[in-house]
């Protein structure tokens, strides 16, 4: 289902919990699917003893992918024109993330959105924007 320009306005929001209690196994799944085997995401021994982090942490692109799921659920499949984010904080095993899109502009059958994903402490982990084609 695509969005309809006549039914949305600036300030509208759509939120989803995109992951609850992120598991190391899901991070491993993402490493396998994306091909990014950086051990800081999947190898606890390397990450704590050699790299100096408290634990493995998620690929930024896993968080962006989780955020993208919220976007496609909101704007519909194959509707995105642009999607960009900055990675503002790391995402750790056990995190629960809520992704939110806020409509900033509706014009010429394109919706512009602010995008933010926050963790269970209310800290943002990605911030960015998106644009999508909508129906009249």
């Amino acid at each position, binding site marked *: 289902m695509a969005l309809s320009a006549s039914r949305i306005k600036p300030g509208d929001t759509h939120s989803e919990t995109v992951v609850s209690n992120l598991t190391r196994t*899901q991070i491993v799944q993402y490493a396998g699917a994306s091909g990014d085997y950086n051990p800081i995401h999947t190898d606890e021994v390397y990450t704590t003893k*050699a790299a100096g982090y408290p634990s493995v942490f998620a690929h930024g692109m896993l968080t962006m992918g989780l955020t993208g*799921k919220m976007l496609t659920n909101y704007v519909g*499949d194959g509707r*995105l024109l*642009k999607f*960009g984010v900055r990675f503002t904080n790391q995402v750790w095993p056990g995190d629960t993330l809520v992704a939110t899109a806020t409509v900033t502009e509706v014009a010429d059958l394109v919706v512009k959105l602010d995008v933010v994903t926050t963790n269970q402490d209310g800290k943002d982990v990605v911030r960015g924007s998106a644009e999508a084609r909508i129906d009249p």
Partner: protein
Amino acid sequence: MAITFPVEASHILMFARAVGDPNPVYNPASAPGGVIAPPTFGQAVAQFDPEYHLRPKPGQPWFGSGKTPSGVDKAPSAGGLHAEQHFEYLRPLRPGDVLTVEIKPGATWEKESKRAGKLTFRERIAEYRDQTGELVLIARGVGVTTERPVDQG
């Protein structure tokens, strides 16, 4: 550098599962009008980069753990992190597409940070063209190398 990236349905399904997305449009068994790729799938071009540095290769030392916490003498102290990623979609990627991905370096800049010391940012632009030469996806990534691990305080 140009990479050939064949888009396959099973790869799309694995990728969608990895981002926890059960949308039927990513599964060949259930996509009514055919499978398309999720919005961040272009990143999986790494699978087809023969030189990709974040994939272990047979017979070569790997910086992750084995007998010791790192398989190389001098582990990259903090390594690189992903700072930004931007996609521009000209059309969805579909199974059967054979993409040619041209990756070019972009700008480089530095910044001082309280949480991680000196930060060096490097931009990378990837253009994805299909088998007819049509531009279908543009990806702009920014990587950052930190002087020390990011302080969690």
